[in-house]
């Protein structure tokens, strides 16, 4: 299948958006849903075709002397700032783009299908705004696909905004609930703040390099990432520095902040838990699998630049490692399963970031601190697997919530015997994320840990510990939902497995989660397009599995059967527990800054100043004139003699003053 079909992959969702958004209002709700699914199915098929062609078909000239290179399908000008600095809207396929195509379309298709069931009440009636929902899903899919196939940095920025918008619209889908509106607003503004830095980064970068295009920033002559090109691009900065750091370091850091906003890195993570106000399938698609990894994708895109600007890389490393732990710690105590999953997402994305960051320095340094990018490969691999099993977990959670009408795990307990399929699927997901072989998560996470150990034992131990926590909190959730104690039925009818539209995606994703680990990622998604030969590092693998098992065991001990242990521990470390439960008060901090400092401290005074001082000044002018007019009216007192007096004095004064001026 010719690669140019990618255009269709982008175009179909866009058309679906306009079609469903405009015409959908008139159509039957279910019909629009089905149309959406069909459209997505076609998109997925084409995307798979294109991606597989790119990876395995060799007739498209994308592989040159063992290097898998980027193929630009088409690339028209969109907006030209100057003759040289031009924004283009194009489609480019390279390993990570192709991989992302698969990830996005797969998860999106699953979610489309799943939503057919999810967005209906128990009598199978579609909810209000069903068409709008599918239109927005299509819009998001379009934006995300456009993002990953971008040919230049600015196009990525544009689609960053677009995915931000669709996320805003979907989080606020239930726009009559204030919580949803607030959450969507928060999500948009936080990511917008990050995008501001992204924009500044692009400004600086493009000012010094004079281009947005990747093929001048990072892609070498053979169309794959090349350190030399990145080197020269950086060099165009002419060693210009700002506050002691090179401008390029600033630019790349800013760009990373942009990515961090989307990928919910600490301290910009606060929007993600609230984003769970949206429909659960949306959380699965946007806030677990695809959009939130945009930041990782962005860094991976500019990987060679980061490799050379070690300063920026260090920042990413620290932020990633810290976020991984921080989110995991919070995830351990959340009672709302979606929030718990959200924090586990944050933690997992932090894994990817860290792995990218350590990548440059991993085993066997080759010429200029390049590294053969095990971490890069691991990160992308984990991105792939994580998308699958996290989507699975979220969809399971959705099924559960749909069954018990609550997010609180206290309302669940012992659901295993009511909804076995969901339970097994969820278990698979947990095993995958916990990194138990042979499930998908094991392979990718193992590579990551290897990369981390290669950077330094400290980093490795730290990340292994976080991996252990991951296993613990995931199984804590699992046990609390499906076991712990007998389920007491709250609703009129007992919870049960959901209709096939919802279970089928679970099964498919579960299968993928089992087998995805055996995808030959080493050969396919490497930073320089060359095949990467690694063999399993048994010490790391063994230790990580061991740690995972410990975590699971702990969770089993504490949460499999109802017991006092959790409460005791909670009482023992109540302060810590409280802090973690309240997410270490980050939201309160933001609340304080935005409301007290900015709103009360800046906006209100400025508004007062405007009305009072500025406007007051002009009103003052008017009133002064008026009162002056009132004051001088006494001159005209109606008496002839005073008139004549003024006349005479005026004439004489005129004469005298002139004499003084002229004669002296």
């Amino acid at each position, binding site marked *: 299948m010719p690669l140019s079909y990618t255009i269709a992959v982008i175009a179909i969702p866009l058309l679906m958006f306009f079609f469903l958004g405009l015409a959908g209002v008139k159509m039957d709700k279910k019909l629009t849903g089905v149309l959406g699914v069909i459209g997505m199915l076609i998109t997925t098929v084409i995307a798979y075709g294109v991606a597989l062609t790119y990876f395995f078909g060799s007739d498209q000239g994308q592989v040159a002397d063992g290097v898998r290179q980027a193929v630009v399908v088409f690339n028209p000008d969109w907006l030209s700032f100057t003759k040289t600095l031009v924004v283009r809207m194009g489609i480019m396929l390279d390993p990570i783009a192709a991989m992302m195509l698969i990830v996005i379309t797969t998860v999106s298709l699953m979610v489309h299908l799943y939503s057919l069931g999810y967005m209906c009440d128990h009598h199978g009636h579609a909810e209000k705004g069903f068409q709008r929902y599918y239109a927005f899903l299509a819009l998001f899919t379009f934006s995300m696909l456009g993002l990953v196939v971008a040919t230049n940095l600015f196009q990525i920025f544009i689609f960053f905004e677009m995915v931000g918008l669709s996320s805003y619209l979907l989080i606020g889908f239930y726009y009559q609930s204030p919580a949803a509106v607030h959450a969507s607003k928060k999500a948009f503004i936080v990511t917008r703040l990050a995008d501001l830095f992204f924009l500044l980064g692009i400004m600086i970068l493009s000012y010094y390099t004079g281009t947005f295009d990747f093929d001048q920033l990072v892609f070498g002559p053979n169309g794959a990432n090349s350190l030399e090109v990145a080197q020269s691009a950086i060099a165009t900065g002419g060693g210009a520095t700002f506050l002691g750091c090179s401008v390029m370091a600033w630019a790349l850091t800013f760009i990373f902040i942009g990515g961090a906003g989307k990928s919910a890195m600490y301290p910009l993570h606060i929007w993600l838990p609230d984003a769970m106000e949206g429909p659960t399938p949306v959380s699965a698609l946007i806030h677990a699998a695809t959009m939130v990894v945009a930041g990782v994708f962005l860094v991976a895109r500019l990987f060679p630049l980061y490799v050379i600007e070690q300063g920026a890389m260090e920042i990413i490393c620290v932020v990633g490692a810290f976020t991984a732990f921080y989110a995991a710690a919070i995830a351990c105590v959340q009672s709302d399963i979606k929030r718990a999953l959200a924090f586990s997402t944050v933690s997992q994305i932090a894994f990817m970031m860290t792995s990218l960051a350590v990548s440059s320095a991993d085993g066997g340094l080759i010429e200029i601190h390049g590294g053969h990018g095990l971490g890069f490969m691991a990160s992308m691999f984990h991105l792939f697997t994580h998308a699958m099993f996290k989507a699975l977990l979220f969809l399971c959670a959705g099924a559960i919530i749909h069954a018990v009408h609550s997010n609180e795990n206290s309302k669940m307990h012992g659901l295993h015997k009511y909804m076995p399929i969901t339970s097994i699927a969820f278990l698979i997901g947990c095993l995958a994320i916990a990194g138990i072989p042979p499930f998908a998560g094991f392979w990718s996470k193992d590579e990551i840990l290897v990369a981390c150990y290669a950077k330094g034992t400290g980093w490795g131990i730290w990340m292994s510990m976080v991996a252990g926590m991951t296993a613990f909190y995931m199984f804590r959730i699992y046990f609390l939902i499906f076991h712990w104690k007998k389920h007491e039925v709250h609703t009129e009818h007992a919870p049960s497995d959901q209709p096939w539209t919802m279970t089928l995606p679970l099964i498919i994703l579960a299968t993928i989660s089992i087998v995805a680990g055996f995808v030959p990622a080493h050969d396919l998604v490497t930073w320089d397009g060359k095949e990467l030969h690694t063999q399993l590092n048994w010490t790391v693998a063994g230790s990580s599995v061991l740690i995972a098992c410990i975590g699971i065991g702990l969770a089993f001990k504490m949460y499999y059967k109802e017991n006092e242990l959790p409460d005791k521990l909670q009482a023992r470390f109540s302060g810590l527990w409280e802090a973690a439960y309240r997410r270490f008060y980050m939201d309160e901090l933001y609340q304080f800054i935005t409301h007290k400092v900015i709103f009360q401290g800046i906006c209100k005074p400025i508004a007062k100043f405007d009305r009072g001082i500025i406007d007051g000044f002009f009103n003052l002018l008017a009133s002064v004139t008026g009162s002056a007019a009132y004051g001088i*009216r006494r001159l005209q*007192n*109606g*008496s*002839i*003699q005073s008139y*004549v007096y003024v006349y005479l004095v005026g004439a004489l004064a005129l004469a005298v003053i002139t004499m003084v001026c002229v004669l002296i």
Partner: protein
Amino acid sequence: MNLTLLMYLVPSLVMFGCGVYGFLTRKNMIAIMISLELMLNSVDINFVVFNRYLFPGQMDGMFFTLFAIAIAAAETALALAIIINVFRVARKVDINELTKLKF
């Protein structure tokens, strides 16, 4: 004794001053009119004197004076008529009556 220019100019100036002073201080309109006459006449004196002393060769000043006298007469007539009108309405010739229109 021969009179110099100053000996005429100073009195005429004084006359003018008196006229102005009278205009500004008197309450009776007739009196005010008289002081106006004083002013006009002092001007006439000026013209005549300048003509006689400085430019004896010509008559401009003299003629001007003649016309000025005529004009003054006309003015007086008109002013008197108006004063009478005012008197008809206000029953007074007090200048302070005429302050209804102001500000």
